[in-house]
């Protein structure tokens, strides 16, 4: 069976009145083929259920523990085979033009991307953090990365900046000495924002509602109460993630 190369358009017969004479290339799947595919599908169904039960039986009766990935691999391979048979013979992709197969494969590709990258994210959470700063264990009984300088073990399970600070405090002897030293390195820090630099701070901006410039905020006195309410509300405002 071959399809005509251009079933869509024949300039001698633009409306296709005579196209059916060649059966338009539609393949009729034989009954034997359909029954055969059905039998294989049913067999595989029984097989996949038997395989999963056999695994449990092996575990209980004979004490052989089959690793989980075997169970997953067997079940999914059989499912893929069954699915491919349905696609190729019941949905007739095997006999169809390749465009339809390409269309279906592209959706499998999109699905694979979706699953793969989402699983990469949700499965690798904390992996880099734990590498940087030690194992994270619930409940706070940290075992974590052992770091010690000069034989003195430092606090486990802290970010590296804090650890470095502790080492330095230990070296200098006291926290006060550390602060003095730090002032030399950090320089003078402006805590107020300027027109060019915005520095985050906690709480309400001091004097936000006090300042009066010519021509603006004329009704400040009336708005006093509402402005105060605004301050409180703004401080409570949780940030939007």
């Amino acid at each position, binding site marked *: 069976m071959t399809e005509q190369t251009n079933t869509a358009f024949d300039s001698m017969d633009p409306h*296709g009145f005579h196209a*059916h004479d060649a059966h338009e290339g539609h393949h009729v799947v034989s009954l034997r083929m359909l029954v055969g595919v059905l039998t294989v599908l049913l067999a595989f169904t029984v097989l996949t259920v038997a395989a999963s039960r056999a695994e449990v039986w092996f575990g209980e009766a004979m004490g052989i523990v089959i690793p989980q990935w075997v169970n*997953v691999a067997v079940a999914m391979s059989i499912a893929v085979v069954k699915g491919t048979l349905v696609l190729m013979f019941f*949905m007739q992709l095997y006999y169809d033009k390749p465009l339809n197969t390409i269309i279906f494969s592209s959706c499998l590709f999109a*699905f694979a991307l979706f699953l793969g990258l989402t699983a990469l994210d949700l499965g690798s959470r904390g992996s880099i953090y734990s590498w940087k700063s030690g194992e994270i264990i619930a409940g706070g009984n940290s075992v974590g990365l052992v770091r010690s300088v000069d034989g003195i073990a430092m606090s486990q399970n802290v970010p590296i900046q804090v650890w470095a600070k502790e080492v330095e405090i230990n070296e200098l002897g006291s926290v006060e000495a550390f602060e003095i030293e730090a002032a030399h390195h950090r320089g003078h820090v402006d805590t107020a924002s300027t027109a060019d630099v915005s520095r985050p701070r906690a709480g309400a901006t001091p004097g936000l509602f006090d300042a009066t410039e010519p021509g603006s905020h004329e009704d400040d006195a009336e708005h006093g109460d509402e402005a105060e309410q605004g301050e409180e509300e703004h401080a409570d405002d949780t940030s939007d993630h």
Partner: protein
Amino acid sequence: MTTIDAGKAKEPAWEHPPHAEHFRSHAEEFDACKIGMWLFLTTEVLLFSGLFCMYAIFRMMYPEAFAAGSHHLNSTLGMVNTIVLLLSSFTMAMCIRCAQLNKQGWLKINLLLTVAFGGIFLFVKIVFEYMPKWALGKRPGYLFEYPYAETNHEQIWWSVYYCATGVHGFHVLVGMILILWVFWGASVKKKYGPKHYTGVEIVGLYWHLVDLIWIFLFPLLYLIH
């Protein structure tokens, strides 16, 4: 038809199948409808891909809950449902074949068989799976009330189970309605035959997809411990 033809038996509707005016031939319309249907099937697969992704992510996070949860599912019933859907897929493929070979009687029988199998699937699922579980408290998320749960996150397992099988069951129902529409076209309007069976083909593809999804859902939910 002219008066000369008046004495002949009326031609069946599919003998000179109409095709929409903007297509150049019936063959072109059939090809186009098929491509369009495959595109729609890809959208359905991607809809379910969200559910499969949700399954995979939560299985990765809570393997014990999923292992324990799948023990609550009866794999025999699952196997019965799988077999029922495979048989329905077979009868649907037979519908195409019957239309191509102008076996109108068998066409209608196979259409009804497909609907029947779909109905059995839904019946087994709702009556033997959903209802007993719901009564015992094996429910999704906030509604969970099962007192003998062995693991901490079993309600997530049930959420995944109900969402995945529920959306699939809805698609089975839609498929059954579409097949009944085709049946009406075949029996009342007698419009399907060897030269025109586009409707049967399109609905058949949808039904096969519903079966295909279940082929993957079944081992993931029932068989993987």
